[in-house]
């Protein structure tokens, strides 16, 4: 019977499609696997100063590497879907999620200490700007920056609110800036939390000293903000030493010593581009390798070398 046959063949096709699709797919990679699984973003997974170099220098291998969006490595680690994850050292979620940064005891990761960049002409006109901004710098260690970031990212406060509170607590501003009699100067920033916070701080301390300040924070990515500074559209923004060394000054080999990196960048950027680097922060917003605090405590892991030893000994994940 032709119509019956037609139906049967149709049913057969649909069914076999289903079977083929399902069977073909089954049996290989399981869900996020057990063992020492490492969560990384796409970039870190291939960069020479990322995962490939890290495992080579410390001499260990993870059981598996899961590549995912940068924003979710913290959550994946908290939820126990991976044992170790990469992130950025000053991210607010590290403290909020009860994670811990492992110390980069072999100085593998390039350094990304932050420093206010000011155009030379602006500094010539208002030399006091250097001192004003340098006041903030020593207050910013990793712990502080991370908790400030967390106030915005986790507690959902506004960056200017958090910045103002922080400066008031440290007595850098009075809360009632005088009528401006200088300027104007323009402060820019990139568009992520830490940059917005640093930008707001710079604006507030300058206003406290009687500057009229244009708020150009949240301008865009690194390249855009740097171009704005070079194009004299903004006068001041915070840049990271490692970023300047690799991206703006176009060097291939990263520097992993904070002071060395800062010195080289400062010298070259002033000479070539007329950009003055003020003091640099103690916090180093570089790549970090994180674990859950509990796991680290249980296995006595503090440094990446400790982690390498534990993995190489074949100790299972707690």
């Amino acid at each position, binding site marked *: 019977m032709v119509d019956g046959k037609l*139906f049967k063949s149709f049913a057969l096709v649909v069914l076999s499609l289903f079977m083929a699709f399902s069977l073909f797919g089954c049996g290989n990679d399981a869900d996020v696997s057990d063992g020492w699984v490492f969560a990384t973003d796409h970039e870190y997974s291939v*960069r020479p100063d990322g995962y490939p170099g890290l495992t080579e220098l410390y001499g260990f291998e993870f059981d598996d590497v*899961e590549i995912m969006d940068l924003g979710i490595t913290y959550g994946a680690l908290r939820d126990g879907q991976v044992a170790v994850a990469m992130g950025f050292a000053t991210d607010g979620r590290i403290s909020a999620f009860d994670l811990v940064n492992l110390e980069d005891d072999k100085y593998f990761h390039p350094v990304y200490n932050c420093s206010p960049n000011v155009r030379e002409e602006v500094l010539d006109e208002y030399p006091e700007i250097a001192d004003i901004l340098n006041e903030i710098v020593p207050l910013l260690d990793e712990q502080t920056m991370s908790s400030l970031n967390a106030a915005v990212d986790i507690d959902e406060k506004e960056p200017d609110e958090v910045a103002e509170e922080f400066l008031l607590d440290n007595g850098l501003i009075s809360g009632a800036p005088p009528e401006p009699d200088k300027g104007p100067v323009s402060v820019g920033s990139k568009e992520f939390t830490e940059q917005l916070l640093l930008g707001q701080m710079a604006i507030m301390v300058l206003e406290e000293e009687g500057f009229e300040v244009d708020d150009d924070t949240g301008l865009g990515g690194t390249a855009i903000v740097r171009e704005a500074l070079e194009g004299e559209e903004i006068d001041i923004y915070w840049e990271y030493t490692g970023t300047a060394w690799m991206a703006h000054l176009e060097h291939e080999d990263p520097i992993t010593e904070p002071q060395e990196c800062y010195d080289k960048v400062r010298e070259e950027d002033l000479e070539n581009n007329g950009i003055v680097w003020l003091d640099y922060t103690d916090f180093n917003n570089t790549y970090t390798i994180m674990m859950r605090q509990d796991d680290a405590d249980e296995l006595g892991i503090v440094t990446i070398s400790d982690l390498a030893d534990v993995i190489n000994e074949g100790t299972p994940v707690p």
Partner: protein
Amino acid sequence: MQMIIKNWFRWLGVPLILILISAAFVIYVVNNPGGAMAARSLTYQNVLRYLREHVHLVFVALGLATAVGVPAGILLTRPKLRRIGKVVENIVNVGQTIPSLAILALFYVYLGLGFRTGVFALWLYCILPILRNTYAGIKSIEPGIIEAALGMGMNPVKILTRIELPLSYPVIMAGIRTAVVICVGTATMATFIGAGGLGDLIVTGLSVRRTIIILTGAFLSAMLAIILDYILGQVEQYLTGRDVNS
């Protein structure tokens, strides 16, 4: 005899050629990555792993989508559910407009990361064209044909299996083909939630600005879509081939 050779070529030859082209491409890029960064990403082991993950995601999602979408589409055309059919069709159409990344992000929150979430989001995405086409295919059958069948004493099950399904399978198959293409493309997004696949290559390439890595991921995913679509097209033609011009 010539027919048989021609059929074999159509069924196996063309996909085989496409696979060979892909393989040649992979061999070329692995041996000529044009830099250390790309070389680290483009190893046979990596590329095959991403490809396998991709196929895995697509096949499981599509299999489940077919298994659910076709029966659900049929159910919606039954008289008792016909009224909600329209509503479901609208929901399905709106659902299709939600960006795939948004679906992934949404389910990541509830299901966590990894393969399972990826499959679930893809499944949800693929089920739409399959369900919609099944529903539309059956509904578009001229009512006179169904009435004639009814009047001739066929029961609803026979009408479904002998009249409605055979008449609408070209539309249903078209839905599955649409789903395949959407699925292969959308599966590249799964990389954001750690479900792997060729998206790993594309996004990695983007973040380190290495075109060859992007190109490899994009090319393989396009080839996968073309091959699967071709094979399903052949299946469709095989079924409709007996049905020339009607």
